[in-house]
């Protein structure tokens, strides 16, 4: 008992005051890319050719954040002249098109569906479905339940049964072998319901694009309401997206 009390005192109060207070992530974290559209087109082409995810459009210089794994190669390759990744983790968007950025970003709050705010603004229960995810997205979603983020304080919870859920949060490129289970889980959620695509895999197949064992795009199967890009999305990216979209 004494050990419990001693450790409790040691540990102190750890919950973040986000979103009331902003959080600064370490400078190496790669969030929203800042794109220099005036840079040499040859440099853009070079970055586009080197990009392992084929996420850069050589002609327009736009980056598809739904494909991007934020590996940072384009920033290194262009020595920051074409792309610089900022530490801004606010990456969630409401439409697939908004993920393709030329450096400007859609306002998630403005695009959020108002009836969702009314329905789920005070309480949102989600069923997480891992559909061939590498477990990084899953792990950094789970982390929202640790004391630092303490997701429950916002009235948002991940629940065990789809019957208790208001929607599904999907990670992974949706293997052929998980397609049926994913669709069954979705059907088991009572309407109205939301669909969240989390991570590059569920949006575009992520690192696995081109494999014939995956669907590679959740939107092909279900109408996605909220996209959270990243590989995996930082927990704050997910938290920001959930709070902005539903609150």
């Amino acid at each position, binding site marked *: 008992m004494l050990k*419990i009390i001693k*450790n409790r005192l040691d540990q102190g109060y750890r919950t973040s005051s986000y979103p009331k207070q902003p959080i600064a992530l370490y400078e190496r974290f790669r969030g929203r890319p800042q794109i220099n559209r005036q840079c040499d087109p040859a440099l853009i082409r070079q970055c586009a050719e080197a990009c392992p995810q084929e996420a850069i459009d050589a002609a327009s210089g736009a980056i598809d954040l739904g494909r991007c794994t*934020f590996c940072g190669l384009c920033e290194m390759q262009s020595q920051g002249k074409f792309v610089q990744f900022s530490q801004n983790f606010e990456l969630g968007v409401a439409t697939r098109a908004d993920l393709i950025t030329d450096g400007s970003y859609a306002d998630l709050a403005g695009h959020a569906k108002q009836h969702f705010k009314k329905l789920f603004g005070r309480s949102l229960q989600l069923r997480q479905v891992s559909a061939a995810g590498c*477990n990084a997205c899953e792990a*950094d979603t789970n*982390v929202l339940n640790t004391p630092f983020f303490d997701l429950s304080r916002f009235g948002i919870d991940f629940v065990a049964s789809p019957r208790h859920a208001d929607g599904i949060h999907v990670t992974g490129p949706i293997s052929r072998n998980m397609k049926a289970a994913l669709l069954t889980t979705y059907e088991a959620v009572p309407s109205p319901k939301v669909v969240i695509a989390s991570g590059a895999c569920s949006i575009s197949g992520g690192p*696995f694009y081109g494999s014939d064992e995956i669907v590679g795009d959740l939107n092909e199967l279900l109408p996605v309401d909220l996209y959270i890009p990243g590989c995996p999305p930082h927990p704050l990216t997910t938290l920001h997206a959930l709070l902005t979209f539903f609150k």
Partner: protein
Amino acid sequence: MDNLLQIANGEVVRRADIPDVSVETFGMTLAEFVRNGGFVVQFFAFAENGITRLLAVVRNDRLYVTSCVVGAEFPSLTGWVSEKFHMFEREIAEQYGIRPTAHPWLKMVRYHRNYSGADDVFGNDYGGEEIPGKYGCFTVEGEAIHEVAVGPVHAGIIEPGHFRFQCAGEEVLHLEIQLGYQHRGVERLLPTVPQRRLPIICEAIAGDTAIGHNLCCCQALEALAGLTVDVGARIVRTIALELERIANHLGDLGALSGDVAFNPPAAYFGRMRGDFLNLLQVLCGNRFGKGLVRPGGVAFVMGDEQRKLIAAKLEEITPQVKNVCDLLFSAHTVQARFENTGIVSREMAEDLGLVGYAGRACGLPYDARVAFPSECYAELPHNTNQMTSGDVYSRATVRREEIMHSLALIELLLQRPETTAKAMMMEERRLAADSLVVTINEGWRGEIAHCVLTGADGAIVRYKVKDPSFHNWTGLAMSLRNQGISDFPLCNKSYNLSYCGFDL
């Protein structure tokens, strides 16, 4: 040892030097090796120019390779030699449509169409119906027997898989684990994509082992491309692999506390795990270390600032880790739940070929960092665990010891003055033709092995991946024999195996 070629971890060998024996000699050679205490690292099929071969990489205190040409079937070694071949032979059957004759329990591994176009060994038609789950599980019969089916979608934020328990009352007589739901076609995809995609894909084989798997991939590419890695980069890679180990072990100790309803350490461990993930973010901008390791070194230099940040955090958090471990392990209620739960005997562990802490907790000392050291491990002290009862308590204790050992290793490495010359960018490189390389690293779950074979033009013809979970899932199933079903979460967490690393 006539029919075996000795190889070294991460060293290129010419394929012409690999013994190419008859399928009978191949089987006899492996049988003799394994009966003399050897273990199987890799055992797989590959096809080239219309010829299909089997290739095996085995280990005692050294590594060996051998191969043979195979037809539509070969005699299974599982039944008459050792369980160590069990999963590998099923995998060969599924991937290439080659039947291991007299295999005692031939069934699907991951449910997918085979690579060779031969008839499916299991009679599945992957073109038509939904196949996953189409499998008659092993059943125990009797009036008092009941069955519990769990998954593929589980209750928490967890990967999918199917578990079928055969129970008499609360007691589990048999647990059958059927995976494959996470199958993304990794091994099929790897030889078809440009080199620049390889590290990105390998970092996503199992996200919690991004460093471990990608290290195997990059070491293989380095060997085949003749690249050297400077000491500074090796230090960063070693630190990253140890940070990954600490973060995962801490997370699992937290989950174990949660499973025995001891909430304070569950919360503390969960929070501290995040601190270590954040240190990987300090190194490379990603909490899982994705983007850090690249062929030739690391993509991000560890400068003085990063060194100081890591050192300061370790100084702050090490006493907390010690205290919270003490809180967990000294609680009588925790001991009562951990001890004698989910026991796997040493004999069983050896026959299954368990690796990592699952093996070490049963008294199999194998640690790839010691046996086949890569990166900086040859210069670093080892950890020897004393607790080898094969139960949840032993697996938890090994993890506790490894956390403290890894913290000490990082501290030693941070004192090294070398800094890598430059950040390495991913570039396409020409790979040695007609070659084989095997890379082995001790990931946090145990032995990770990648095996790359190149053809006449240096293109990759076969890329074989093995996650330690491939060996250890069977260990979990055996842990549940004659256990209460309510002990499943605890046993499961004590292993915390990878679904996606297994499913590929």
